[in-house]
């Protein structure tokens, strides 16, 4: 018997590959070559065309596939090899697990008692700069980018004659935990490298948050951030590392960070 499904062969190329992803979806564009150039200028999903006012089928399905991948990425762990390579020991905030991390950011800003004791026992005090690494919302961001950016920052500071403290890793960390960290360390500048929440197609963006003498009551307004550190359409970690070093030098020179630094620097200009 000759059944129709014997003749059905659906064997697709991976739609997430760059050339598939970047395929032009506009039917009869005004300027095809020009449209290709526009699309090449950004990672944004442009040149996708339309089915009536709605997206075309392939761009709609690709979007949903990327969302699926991002959902799967949220629950990763930072690799032990990465921590070992950078010489980081691990401490925890007051958060117990990943669900609590999502629902209770206040606990992610506070070190647990064990962490405080460990840091006090293992870290040198009052360096000019203290660097810490946190998982945040993307372990992939730390796994991919921390081994690249960390040595750049450390070497950049050392060659500028700036002293650097004992680095460590904080599990279930939020940015504000640097206030607690510095209560023990007493550094002039604290840098935390933290995984950002995954975007679509970019699940490994790292951010560096920096504060001058962070402590109780210090907020985002007192901090600076270098965000979207990734090889996937952001600032690459090597370039970002150099930028972070320059930012730290400015903070040390002006004895300030965040809005305060901005005001001081606009006064100098």
């Amino acid at each position, binding site marked *: 018997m000759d059944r129709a499904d014997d003749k059905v062969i659906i064997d697709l190329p991976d739609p997430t590959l760059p050339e598939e992803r970047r395929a032009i979806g*506009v039917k*009869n*564009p*005004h*300027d*095809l070559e*020009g*449209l290709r150039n*526009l*699309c090449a*200028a*950004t*990672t*944004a*999903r*442009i*040149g*996708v*065309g*339309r089915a*009536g*006012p*709605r*997206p075309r089928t392939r*761009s709609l399905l690709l*979007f*949903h596939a*990327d*969302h699926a991948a*991002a*959902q799967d*990425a*949220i629950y990763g762990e930072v690799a032990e090899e990465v921590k070992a390579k950078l010489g980081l020991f691990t401490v925890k905030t007051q958060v117990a697990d990943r669900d609590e991390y*999502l*629902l*209770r*950011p*206040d606990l992610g800003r506070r070190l647990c008692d064990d962490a405080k004791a460990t840091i006090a026992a293992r870290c040198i005090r009052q360096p000019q700069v203290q660097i810490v690494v946190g998982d945040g*919302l993307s372990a992939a961001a730390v796994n991919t980018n921390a081994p690249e950016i960390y040595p750049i920052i450390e070497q950049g500071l050392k060659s500028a004659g700036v002293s650097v403290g004992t680095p460590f890793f904080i599990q279930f960390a939020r940015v504000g935990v640097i206030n607690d960290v510095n209560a023990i360390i007493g550094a002039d500048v604290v840098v935390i490298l933290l995984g*950002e*929440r*995954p*975007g*679509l*197609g*970019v699940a490994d*963006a790292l951010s560096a948050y920096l504060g001058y003498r962070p402590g109780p009551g210090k*907020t*985002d*307004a007192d901090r600076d951030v270098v*965000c*979207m550190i990734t090889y996937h*359409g*952001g*600032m690459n970690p090597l370039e970002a590392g150099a930028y972070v070093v320059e930012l730290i030098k400015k903070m040390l020179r002006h004895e300030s960070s*965040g*809005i305060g630094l*901005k*005001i001081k620097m*606009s006064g100098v200009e």
Partner: protein
Amino acid sequence: MLLRTRLYGKMYEFRTIKELLAKANEEKSGDRQAGIAATTAAERMAARHVLAETPLAVLRQNPVVPYEEDEVTRVIQDAVDEVVYDEIKGWTVGELREWVLADNTTTAMIRRVSDGLTAEMVAAVTKLMSNLDLIYGASKIRFTAHANNTIGLQGTLASRNQPNHPTDSVDGIRATLYEGLSFGSGDSVIGINPMDDSVDNVMRLLDMTYEVIQRWRIPTQNCVLAHVTTQMEALKRGAPMGLMFQSLAGSQKANEAFGVTVGMLDEAYTLAQKHCVSEGPNFMYFETGQGTALSADAHYDADQLTMEARIYGLAKRYRPFQVNTVVGFIGPEYLYDATQITRAGLEDHFMGKLTGVPMGCDACYTNHARATQNDIENLAVLLAAAGCDYFMGVPMGDDAMLSYQCTSYHDTATLRQLLGLRPLPEFEAWMEEIGLMRDGRLTDKAGDASFFLQR
């Protein structure tokens, strides 16, 4: 003060207006995180029964942050129209709800009464409303404003063209801007979130967007959503700016976490009126969102809805061209899932309208919230039905810089064609003139960024 009721035979008592407001709030993970939410569903409903009988005067007299301690409270209380307030101070919150919804209460009547309300009254009536109440109530209230075009008119739906790029590439932003324009996005504003908050960068992006606006004679305005101090400096140096932007929060302390004060905003407003290139008289753009006060530990044990209402009261001082809540951006610790995000979007839109500002919504979610693009499409339909003034336009709803998803260029075009809504009139005339739109629908040329390579 005695605030109590029996419900199914059990007595529920509330010590303060602040506690009553918090416990009457629809379930939000942020209020749980703050430890102020109702502990049972029945307690929540008991609080609403008591709140419904509370006179508006009691809410006026009990702001959730004291007048002496907080400049946001002072801004709101000092702006109350005392004549209007005297007329309504004896109304209960339940009566206010029925008055807003009543057949013979007109848009003009609501606009007048809104000058006699404080944020606590706006929040209180919102807590008594169901989702459809919020949609229907908001649909009755329109506030218009003008910069280079007119926002807020009945029957219009505008779109902020948000052509962000992860490294602020001018070419990348321009390409995305063209894509959006070709779908009819950009009538509310061409508004970029910069990666680099420096004055030079902000000026560069204002120059580029202004050049496109001039070259194509687009009746709209540009904006770069840097910190207000950066924009002020750019404006002083002669940057061509259409709207001045700032994110706001509901208490003085929370605004300090954003690095802003009322004095600074007053100064920014004065500067914008003098130097912005748009015609005006409205020059300001604000974003809000439930949970910002708590995230700065500046919520004074008040619930996130009431803190949000206070932002609209502050925003109104500056006669903004537009205000939008960024409803799902803050994350699941404040709005846990699609149910909470949807509810908050409808609440914020209603509260903005009742307070008296043109109100849009960044209907959005992050990848760690329990929500999907379908939920955001649903919310956009509900808000469009409610008369929401504008949505964000982002390529396929995927922001290349902010790592979140919101409404797309396609979505605004779809909602307009689905619900018979039009772009802002000046912008629609321009779309017709260049041949991208006819009778409120996209033409065959639309949806093609390369159309804009002609000039």
